[in-house]
């Protein structure tokens, strides 16, 4: 799952996957504007059948946070 999330975000933010994985805040790796936000939510929904909400995003800073949120949502 981690690899897929990194792939999705690196394509949307047009940034280096390694840089993204190490970032303290993934938003700083590229232009995190509203289109990037919507594209990410759509891609995560396509890939994992999970809707990451605005509320969820407030607790997501690193890729590991992202993985945790998606895993928790998938588990129900």
């Amino acid at each position: 799952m981690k690899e897929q999330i990194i792939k999705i975000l690196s394509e949307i933010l047009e940034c280096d996957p390694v840089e993204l994985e190490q970032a303290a805040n993934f938003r700083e790796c590229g232009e995190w504007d509203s289109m990037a936000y919507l594209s990410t939510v759509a891609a995560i929904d396509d890939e994992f059948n999970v809707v990451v909400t605005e509320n969820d995003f407030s607790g997501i800073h690193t890729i590991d946070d992202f993985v945790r949120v998606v895993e928790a949502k998938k588990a129900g």
Partner: protein
Amino acid sequence: MPLLSYEGVAITAMAAAVPQARFDNLTAGPPFTAGDAAEIVEKTGIRYRRIAGPHTCASDLCHAAANRLFEDTGVERKSVDVLLFVSQTPDYRMPATAVLLQDRLGLGMNTAAFDINLGCSGFVYGLSLAYSYCMQAGVNRVLLLNGETRTKAYSMRDKATGLLFGDAGSATLVEKRASVGQSFFTANSDGARGEHIIIRSGGYRYPSTMESLREQTFEDGSIRSGEHAAMKGRGVFEFLLLEVPKDIKAALTAAAVAVDEIDYFVFHQANRFMNEHIRKRLRLPADKVPYSLADYGNTSSVSIPLTMVADLASPLAAKANRLFICGFGVGLSWASGVVPCEPIHVSELVEVCDAATV
């Protein structure tokens, strides 16, 4: 979510009208840069929009559409039993615009007429109500009008919404048709998300003041007042993903029809990015999902009938079709319908000049 079903009622004729004035989003000025405008056109699929002039109200667009429908079909105006006007841009706060349209359209005084205050879900809600009336022994004809001048509700200089909306009006005639079979509708509401799309001031909660009319400049360069509509796109998208596919599946299940038994899925035209996401999630074939976004933008409750008139006129007129319709947006409010149709009389799209009419 109520599941509503109706028997022996159908759409028999449709017409739609748009303002003649066309705006090309690629020519948008500040606060949009040329790059912003190009990106918005690409992502939303909205290149052109029709803009109502100062003299044109939603009712005028519906009036033009309904007149064309009566002229083309020869339906006797006095035979209309119920007139429904769905709009959030009415002529006056009172009286109801539908009542004024009863007179302007030459309908009888024994016509029931009232307004329905809904936006993007409004065609589906209105059609469901029209079908409900038409099930009555004493009702043979219902005229459903959907009209919006959304470009007057939003600031054209709001970076989130300034290039999305267009103006239009439609007229849909609903009649008894024993041979058409059953139609199914859902209807839903979530007032907890009411703030996602709202015109805060100018109603009775927060009446107009000098302050509410004053335009403010926001951090992203957007300019709007408290009497312009404001939209939280992220929250709206979240709602779409969480609720709309679920409702579409529920309506298909209620009607006991599979995706391949539907001829066309006519969705509210929000924007191409959001609509295409829903289409792909539901694995709907692209050729069954028409769009009118590129030419008319998001016209709120008119977007479904406008798409039918502008993009589906030939198949709707030529043969029987089973349609799936779904509207979603301001409220938040959403509804779906499985609507079998016999051949429908579809008038050519009417273009309306801006002229003082009332």
